[in-house]
């Protein structure tokens, strides 16, 4: 009962246990997030995590792996990603090298053969050698399936990949197996816990959605965000946390091109702590605002109202 997967199953006993466990590794999970992991474990289904950039989608997978003590296998998606980079590839170079080296051995094997047919027959006896697991270069997906004690598989930014690739994922996501024509079907010993993240660059196909649980992570409420900041930025003063979170929440109500998300709040908090700030003031906010806002237009839009927003935030 000491192998990691047993502990994983043991650890995921209830939603509260998940909330607590993730809290332990510095991820403050809402009830719905924890529930999704609970259901995923019980139904053996992947989770499709959606939400705007920086709300902690990737972080969720990292923290879960961390908490469960399982290896994290990460696959970053991009346009043009195909199965040879995601699943497996034959080591062509090695295959060629071996044929070169084995040339002499080939001669030995073939010496006894009287005709071409017989030589071919003899060769056929060895042909499968070159398409065996030794020449297989496992890529993330195959690696995840072959982990003895299970793993956390993170398929990051699935929306950036092509539709064909999405279709190709279906076999893995529903049956936790892959088919390699030359070898056969490889099934996972222990199904990995799969997270797919999406920024909604494009709508995911229905087939994929059907096979996944769906988790939407919204921007957090003030209370939750305060806890997140406190957990992520050690040594931050309570008052400063309240003020900066209030400020960020006011920013989110403005018409901005890119709303600051949790990761930006955390970055900002870190910067403020570095600068030894104990409370917000207009000058400080103006100087550090570029951590929160990533567009020139947003900057100019907010610039005028900084004193007003700061004053409001100071009341917290």
């Amino acid at each position: 009962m000491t192998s990691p997967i047993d502990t994983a199953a043991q650890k995921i006993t209830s939603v509260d246990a998940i909330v607590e466990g993730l809290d332990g590794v510095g991820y403050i999970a809402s009830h719905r997030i924890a529930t999704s992991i609970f259901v995923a474990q019980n139904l053996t289904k992947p989770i499709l995590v959606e939400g705007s950039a920086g709300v902690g989608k990737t972080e969720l997978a990292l923290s879960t792996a961390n908490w469960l003590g399982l290896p994290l296998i990460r696959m970053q998606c991009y346009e043009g990603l195909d199965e040879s980079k995601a699943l497996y590839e034959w080591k062509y170079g090695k295959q060629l090298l071996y044929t070169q080296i084995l040339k002499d051995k080939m001669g030995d094997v073939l010496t006894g053969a009287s005709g071409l047919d017989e030589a071919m027959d003899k060769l056929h006896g060895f042909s499968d050698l070159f398409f065996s697991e030794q020449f297989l270069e496992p890529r993330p997906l195959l690696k995840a399936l072959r982990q003895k004690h299970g793993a956390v598989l993170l398929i990051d930014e699935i929306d950036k990949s092509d539709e064909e690739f999405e279709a190709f994922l279906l076999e893995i996501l529903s049956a936790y197996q892959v088919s390699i024509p030359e070898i056969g079907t490889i099934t996972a010993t222990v199904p990995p816990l799969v997270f797919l993240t999406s920024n909604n660059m494009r709508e995911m196909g229905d087939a994929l959605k059907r096979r996944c649980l769906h988790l939407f992570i919204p921007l957090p409420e003030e209370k939750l965000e305060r806890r997140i900041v406190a957990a992520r930025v050690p040594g931050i003063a309570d008052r400063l946390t309240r003020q900066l979170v209030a400020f960020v929440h006011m920013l989110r109500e403005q018409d901005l091109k890119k709303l600051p998300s949790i990761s930006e709040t955390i970055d900002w908090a870190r910067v403020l702590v570095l600068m030894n700030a104990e409370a917000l003031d207009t000058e400080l906010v103006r100087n550090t605002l570029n951590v929160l806002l990533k567009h020139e237009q947003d900057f100019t839009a907010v610039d005028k109202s900084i004193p007003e927003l700061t004053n409001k935030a100071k009341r917290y």
Partner: protein
Amino acid sequence: MQQTLTNFLRALRAMEIPVSPLETIDAHRTVDAVGFADRSLLRDSLCVTLAKSEEEVEKFDECFDMFFTREEFRDRREADADTAPGKSETDPALIAESPLAQLLLEGSESDLAQALERAAAATGVANIRYATQRNLFNRRMLDQMGLRQMERMIAALNRSETAAGTAAAQRLEAARQYLFEQAQQYTARQFQLYARFAGEQLRAEFLVKTNLSAVELRDFQRMHRIVRRMARKLATRYNRRRKHTRRGVLDVRRTLRRNMAYDGIPFETVWKQTRIEKPKIVVICDVSQSVAAAARFLLLFLYSLNEVISSLRAFAFSGNLIEISDILEDKSVEAAIPEILEKIGFRPTDYGRALADFDEGYMDSVDRSTTVMILGDGRTNDTDPRIDLMRKLHDRAKSVIWLNPEPETFWGTGDSEMPRYRTFCHVATTCSTVQDLERIIDDVLKTYFRT
């Protein structure tokens, strides 16, 4: 409990959350895993299994709350217990004939709720589709519960002219009224659950086939949703990967060249590829008086198209022509369309001038991979149509598509120069409904991906 879950899934479907058989199985497995006891756990776990987008999550939450409100229903009854009919004052013998009367006067609150639900199941209230059916279902439900018998009894008691009889009749009358209200609330909720969106669907189906110029302003929001859904559908179908690696087809020439360093032994293989170009689309939209009624929707369509196709340049004109790509990009749909119309719309048309403006400013952006789409009626107000510029456009572009809100029989009548323009279009067709639009855009995108 299984029936409850099945009904809940039906309610979800009625709210336009698609639930497939696979998801039905998942939902049952989820419930097996978490149980019915913890309501918020049940809600969260069903939500992650069934709702598949942000919108659906919202709908799900609403539906869940509405579906599981029976407890609140009971609370309300207890709250106005004093107005509810008093118990055990009536002689049991008087009401012995009617089980419903007994239930109302003597049964517990949850008994009544259960009886209501049983009657609802028997009459199939869940099949309700239209608001007008509410009363019908109400009546059927009450009949099922034995209301007629009770009404006959009330009449009989009234006729009996004894003090006890009239008092009982009054009490029963109050109870009947109360039952009526409860039943009404019940059907109203069922309607909300199962049928609120049926009307919406009906309206949407109707709008798709309505002539653009006949669509009323109050349907604008609804239209926006329809058009956006359509644009997204088209975009996901065609925004596929534009570069195919044809696995298995070796590019011998490039492989040999790359492997010269290895003495010609092909260590690195190069596979053949085919590239498909991104569609470049230029849309020129007429927003003048003559197409005033349809202009709003043509712009709406442009807006939705811009949301899903990244390389779209849009222009609008009535007298002059301006580029509106930025407005479509930056503003919300409610702000963008009025702004464009205010800037340039509803003036007398001058196609010649617009084409000249386009020629001067933007003709360079049109090349062999561009599709030019013109939305307009081709009515030039007897100004110079500048057919020469139209020819130039035709020669430069990959294809020119003219979508005209007027039916083809009107082309060439009055000041319409459509027959002359038409010569220089690859496609010229009538487009008066959303359905037409969808078909045409589909065709346009198809031609890109075939080559």
